[in-house]
């Protein structure tokens, strides 16, 4: 079983993380779109932390002895998923940066040529 102490510690960490994320969204330094997965993850772990009974049930269903391991396991899965989504997003972003920079270079050259024609 989880002790009340670890329950409190995990709960406190989650609340702090939640406040930080909400603050960052407020200051627009984190896009809601990308924060959403974090918020969902925190919400789930928080529910499990508050109601360890649920945890015991799910753990025994999955054949995990200590429910606290279940929290770590779930958190780990969520993190992996988020990191993977980020890698996909990054690939798309780098493709966009590439297209944009190429367009900038091509347009700049066109401007140069036009200026030269104008001067001549």
């Amino acid at each position, binding site marked *: 079983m989880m002790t009340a102490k670890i329950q409190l510690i995990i709960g406190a960490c989650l609340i702090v993380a939640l406040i930080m994320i909400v603050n960052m969204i407020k200051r627009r330094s984190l896009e809601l779109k990308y924060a959403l997965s974090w918020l969902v993850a925190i919400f789930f772990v928080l529910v499990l932390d508050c109601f360890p009974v649920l945890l015991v049930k799910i753990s025994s269903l999955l054949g995990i002895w200590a429910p606290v391991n279940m929290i770590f396991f779930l958190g780990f899965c969520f993190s992996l998923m988020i990191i993977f989504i980020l890698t996909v997003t990054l690939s798309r972003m*780098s493709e966009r*940066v*590439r297209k944009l*920079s*190429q367009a*900038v*270079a*091509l347009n*700049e*050259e066109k401007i140069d040529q036009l200026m030269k024609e104008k001067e001549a």
Partner: protein
Amino acid sequence: MKSLVIIPAYNEEKSIENTVRDIMQNAPEFDYVIINDCSKDNTLAVCKEKGLHVLNLPVNLGIGGAVQTGYRYALQNGYDYAIQFDGDGQHDAKFLHEMRDYMIQNHTDMLIGSRYITKEGFQSSSLRRFGIRYFSVLIKLLTGARITDPTSGMRMVNRDIIKLYANVYPKDYPEPESVVAILRMGKKVEEYPVIMRERTEGVSSISPLKSIYYMVKVTLAILVERIR
């Protein structure tokens, strides 16, 4: 018949002017464009000062992204042939005519300038030659085509391939991968014997430390290209 020489340049301040002069002297009816891939040295300043024709990338895209900019330029400006040409003095512009004539006569889609047909001139280190042989064998196994110099940066393509490459081009270490891509589409890829020089300035983009990553990445890229 409009033909373009695409010169990707990253930190080539010392050799870029000579490269362009070589083209203007030995292949005067070829247009050229330098792609400055956000060089850290004075490449851009040298180009502007000497009045060289340059496309300036605002961020460093790597060789693939730089060369692709050249293909986009070629597509936008209606070029019939485009050739990649290193800015470090390795390639010799006197082959440009012969290569284009060969392509027109033989209806070739891509003509690769190969060091390993007549085996003259700079042949690269033995370790590197081994790597090139390995890619040759891999391409032969996967596509059946015999390419003796798959990493050669001196490659001429027709309008068909310009369109393809303007649209999709690999990002880093693009040469072998992009050859396999068009071989798989049934395009006609041939080689032409050329003589290359040892680079006069600068260092290869592939340092010894990166070569393992290079081998693994390019192998995977070629395999992925095979199942595409």
